[in-house]
């Protein structure tokens, strides 16, 4: 087959979805993000509105109540970018069940899919999340300290997982733990004995209600272990998802800053007329473009079944550094006003820092 041409054009369906998502961002997700952040709890209407786009339904076989389309990391990434422009927190929380669905499709057996998928795609949003990160400065996914020890037809899980979005609302978790055969993934029901979930207040992503899971000799049957688990794939697809959220958020910072710097006057003229201000705006646009294209390349490679780990790794590194620079410069352009919570800039700044610490969560 002749390889496809280099192309950045959205197809018809992607274009329509984009318009609908941008409408949600404009009408409610963006405007209502602040109140939820202040409250430190998610707005269920926003969660439901994101859930209604049905991203979790897409790859689920029709027989199990889904749409039965093939997995599409690219469509998911585009959605994350659009939604991230409204609010990273709600997008991250609302799309966690999608991430678990994707993990089950990619790594789970047929029986496991039949067992778990229908419960994750009901009309109402049902919480579920991936738990990978552990609370250590030197956390490394290939050297997990949460351990899965073989025990009578199953495993005993011990350890602590953190930064789990919407943990309190989850009916189940996909817990990644180190087993004798290396990193492994286990479906763990929220009511499992020995599992406690507590909300952990964080710098940002506050309305995502990030939680800590404590696993104290939690037993999971062997049938709950996903046989095809691939840690690198989980990491890479989640980096793409998070990069997409960050690209969306950074675009929101830029779009919000442009009218302000043209309006705000200092020394008798708009501050946008000064190169020191204008060049910050240029730099934001330049880096956003680079971030976006790297994210898209990794996503489109994943979509086409090409190796994409390196591309996702580099996109995550680029986004982690450039997105934070954009977040901090967004506040800088507004001066004191950026620091005040009347404006969304400080919230975006806090949310963007998550790029450096959150891994294995938003699997697209």
């Amino acid at each position, binding site marked *: 087959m002749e390889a496809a041409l280099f192309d950045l054009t959205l197809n018809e369906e992607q274009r329509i979805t984009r318009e609908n998502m941008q409408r949600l961002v404009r009408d409610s997700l963006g405007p209502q993000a602040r109140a939820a952040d202040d409250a430190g709890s998610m707005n269920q209407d926003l969660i439901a509105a994101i859930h209604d786009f049905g991203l979790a339904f897409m790859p689920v076989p029709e027989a199990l109540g889904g749409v039965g389309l093939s997995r599409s990391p690219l469509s998911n990434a585009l959605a994350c970018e659009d939604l991230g422009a409204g609010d990273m927190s709600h997008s991250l929380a609302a799309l966690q069940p999608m991430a678990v669905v994707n993990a089950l499709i990619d790594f789970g057996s047929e029986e496991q899919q039949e067992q778990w998928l229908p419960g994750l795609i009901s009309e109402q949003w049902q919480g579920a999340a991936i738990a990978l990160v552990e609370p250590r400065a030197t956390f490394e*996914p290939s050297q997990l300290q949460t351990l899965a020890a073989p025990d009578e037809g199953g495993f005993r899980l011990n350890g602590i997982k953190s930064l789990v979005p919407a943990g309190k609302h989850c009916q189940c978790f996909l817990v990644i733990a180190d087993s004798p055969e290396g990193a492994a993934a286990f479906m763990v029901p929220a009511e499992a004995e020995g599992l406690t979930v507590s909300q952990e207040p964080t710098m940002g992503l506050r309305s995502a209600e990030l939680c800590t899971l404590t696993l104290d000799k939690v037993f999971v049957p062997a049938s709950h272990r996903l046989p095809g688990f691939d840690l690198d794939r989980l990491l890479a697809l989640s980096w793409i998802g998070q990069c997409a959220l960050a690209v969306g958020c950074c675009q929101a910072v830029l779009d919000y800053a442009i009218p302000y710097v043209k309006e705000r006057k200092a020394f008798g003229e708009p501050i946008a007329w000064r190169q020191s201000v204008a060049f910050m705006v240029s730099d934001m646009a330049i880096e956003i473009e680079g971030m976006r294209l790297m994210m898209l390349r990794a996503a489109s490679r994943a979509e086409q079944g090409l190796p994409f780990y390196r591309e996702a790794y580099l996109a995550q*590194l680029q986004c982690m550094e450039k997105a934070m620079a954009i977040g901090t410069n967004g506040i800088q352009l507004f001066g004191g006003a950026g620091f005040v919570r009347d404006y969304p800039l400080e919230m975006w700044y806090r949310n963007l820092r998550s790029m450096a610490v959150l891994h294995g969560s938003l699997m697209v």
Partner: protein
Amino acid sequence: MINLELPQKLTQVQHMAQQLAAGVFRPITRKYDAIEHCETPDELKPVAQMMASMGRGPKGKAEPSDEIRNGANMMGIMGVEAMSWGDVGLMLSIPGTGLGNAAVMAVGTAEQKEKYGKLYCAMAITEPGAGSDSAAISTTARLEGDEWVLNGEKIYCTGGQRCDAVVVWATLDKSLGKAAIKSFIVPRDNAGMSLVRVEDKMGLRVSDTAALSLNDCRIPKDHILGSPDIADSEEARKKAFGGVMQTFDNTRPQVAAMALGVARAALEITREIYEKEGVKADFSKLHYNSTARELELYRLEADLEAARLMTLKAAWMADNGQPNSKDASMCKAKAGRMGNEVTLKCVALCGELGYSERTLLEKLARDSKIIDIFEGTQQIQQLIIARHLLGLSSKELK
């Protein structure tokens, strides 16, 4: 459909250019860096013939169409990137690939294209008193009967020594500003144009950077590029100068591609050295769990990748008839600073092996600097981008 991989027709161009770069440029890269001033290197003559026989696709904005195209602009990126991996200075010394050629192809008449398109045309814009501010040039052109008479000093003219003709920017009336600036084709052997000197430079040494002096330099009336009329309204003035500047929308991604090639070369050499010394950089750990050397390498690779994709995008837009002025400047700004950063860091990352002439790293770091300067400095690109984003004029955002 979103796809950021390259089709075979582009990778083939890259492959061919890479062979040329590895087989012809690399073996003579040190030789000509040391020689510095010379006539066109003999080794480049067959290259010029080969490129001429392949037909140089005119790069320019294609007409919009429903069909997606990966055309001449993108192929240009592939070729320039790979040749620059070999040696940017040698690439710029291939007869027939001057910036003046781009101008002739962009705005020339059919006769001008026929007559000068195949020659080696340099471009002379900069003057001792006018660099980035090209509207401030003071070389004059006045019509005397059937001839234009040009007077002034030009500097930093790439190819100004070895070219066949120079596209000279001059003003018809300095008091009328940008609108009165026109460009003229001056054959290199014109008695009124003399070579003052060829500059000694930090890098790109083999490329001839000339200072030219025009003293009552007479050329036929039809040697003007574009219209001789001076626009009288603000709108028309903008349009006229904008037309001249539009050449850069097509050439800036090509210059960005030079930075891509130079950066890739430096990273490849660094990776080779690191492999020998046992530095892995295999993406096997989170960034902050990697060593400082690994992390730095990842950062540089990420930056190169961002610049590469932005450059391809700007060229893709041109191939598909989309306005790309902002994107052309964005990729030039990103790639220009990236190329410099990457090559300098690679020297630092390789210690003595980077700083000495044992490897090409120190040369690449000398060559890369100019790419963030010529064809519009970093700061000029930033101005252009900001004016686009903020909707400000050059009077508002100076």
